[in-house]
């Protein structure tokens, strides 16, 4: 199992006294995959990652990386992983090169050639002291230190923070190449488009709990099951009632109506045929809207009741 799924969570839970941390996380990350871990700020992404890294101790449950227990075999795990914290901090008075050398020395490895190769790819001057780095440069240095020892598993907490779109693209390419070579990436983000762009599978966390765990393809398929309908009626026309099952009015004026259809396309078309429609658009929501649906369950339930 560990060979196929280098990262496995089994009911991982962290509580801070009465405060919520994360609750009962069950996930499995396949080898060679890029796994997106999506959630708004404060949802529990960083707590989950810090548990994986052994920085926090779980209250209950367990997790394994490459078949090794995150609590009992943390040291052995750290030889196999590369980690980028959400807010990466370095020794300000060191140059980029000295920083990477220090971290390589802590691993007892010589990572010079790979580090230089990554620095070239990300266009980072390693001779500059960290205190003179912009946030973007620090983030690049963080990515280099996470990848320079060619780990089996990469754990990245919002890796494209502060990077401009061109560099983001380079990072995506690096990560895709790494995954193609058999590396596994656990990738937290709150940017849906980047998760959609590079991840094979995604889990969503809300209030410390996993609310969705699906492949990107399945989520895309789900998105086509919802239609947003915008229509204008001919002057004097009104929408017939009752609405078919699954069709709900989101907003309306005298002539314009915005509906959402969670039911079948057939019943929608039959309903529209019975009404004096003058202008009509039907759109499937973007993946972003599907994600947002998980965060707006209450709102949608309210719409459905109306």
């Amino acid at each position: 199992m560990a060979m196929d799924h280098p990262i496995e969570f089994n009911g991982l839970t962290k509580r801070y006294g009465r405060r919520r941390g994360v609750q009962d996380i069950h996930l499995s990350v396949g080898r060679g995959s890029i796994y997106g871990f999506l959630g708004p700020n404060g949802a529990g992404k960083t707590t989950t990652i810090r548990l994986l890294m052994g920085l926090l101790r779980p209250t209950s449950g367990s997790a394994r990386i490459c078949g090794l227990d995150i609590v009992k075999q943390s040291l052995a795990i750290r030889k196999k992983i590369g980690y980028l914290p959400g807010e990466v901090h370095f020794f300000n008075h060191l140059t980029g090169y000295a920083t990477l050398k220090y971290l390589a020395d802590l691993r007892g490895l010589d990572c010079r050639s790979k580090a230089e190769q990554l620095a070239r790819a990300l266009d980072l001057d390693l001779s500059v002291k960290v205190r003179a780095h912009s946030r973007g440069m620090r983030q690049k240095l963080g990515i280099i230190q996470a990848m320079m020892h060619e780990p089996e598993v990469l754990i990245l907490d919002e890796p494209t923070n502060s990077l401009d779109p061109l560099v983001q693209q380079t990072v995506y390419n690096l990560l895709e190449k790494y995954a193609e070579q058999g590396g596994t990436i656990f990738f937290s983000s709150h940017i849906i488009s980047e998760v959609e762009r590079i991840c094979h599978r995604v889990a969503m966390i809300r209030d410390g709990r996993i609310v969705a765990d699906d492949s990107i393809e399945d989520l895309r398929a789900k998105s086509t099951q919802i239609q947003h309908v915008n229509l204008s009626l001919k002057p004097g026309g009104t929408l017939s009632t009752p609405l078919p099952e699954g069709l709900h009015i989101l907003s309306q004026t005298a002539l314009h109506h915005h509906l959402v259809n969670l039911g079948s396309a057939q019943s929608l078309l039959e309903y529209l045929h019975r009404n004096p429609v003058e202008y009509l658009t039907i759109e499937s929501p973007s993946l972003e809207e599907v994600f947002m649906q998980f965060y707006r369950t209450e709102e949608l339930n309210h719409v459905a009741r109306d």
Partner: protein
Amino acid sequence: MLPGTSASLQRFLPISLPLLVRTWWDYWFTLLISSGTLMGFHWLAVTFLPAYNLRYRLTYIRKMPPFVKAMFGPDLLAISSMTAMNSFAYLHPVTLAILMAVAIIIPSWMLVGQIDRGTIELTLSTPTSRKKIVLTTIFAGLLAGAVLAGAMLLGTWIGIQRTKLPEPIVFKHIVTIVINLYAIYILCMSVSIFTGAIASIRGTAVGLAMAFCVVAYLIHFLAEWWKLVEKIAFLGPLYYFRPIKIAAGTYDPTQDILTLLGASVVLMIISTIWFSKRDIAVV
């Protein structure tokens, strides 16, 4: 890669050489200034000795204001030699303040300082155990203390060589005093390691360790005045430091040194366990 820090060697060593070297590069200047000041101070202390006749000195001590006498502890009137007079310098607030400052600064930088700055996340993403970080901190602290102790001895030795003294200073007694003082330093360092292991903010850890040192000094000082404090004087580390008696050659400080080291070892073990098991959350 650093010479001799291969993965297998690092696995074998109980400390992290890269972390030790990193600390050395960050603190060599502080250590240079501190040890230079201590060396100069102790050199000067010997240089000024001949200016005072022993008999005059004892009269002078008897006439000292009580709070000044209290600063030097209960053995003040036991001064009977040039060596005992020189041992004053090892109880002087300048010596104690510099030693305590170094004992607090370096451990707090290596433990809680890394949490405070956020660099601990990257350090702990490498195969460096938390136990190794604490052991490296202890080693770095011991090394710094040894440098300071050496500087004090060197200062005294140079002073002896370059000053015409009316009676000789027994250098082996001075060495014993410095060993006893080093044990005091180790206890303060252990307190700093403990506060650094439990706190998440460096200011808090330094504040707590400094409070310990101030309280330790106050107990030593107030015990001369206040019967109640005298009863608890054994709780202060300076109770286990009697340089004037050691200089007189009438006191064996082995038990004091062992008491100080015993308390230090207990604190170091608690700190190592605590730091190994605690949550580390960088803000």
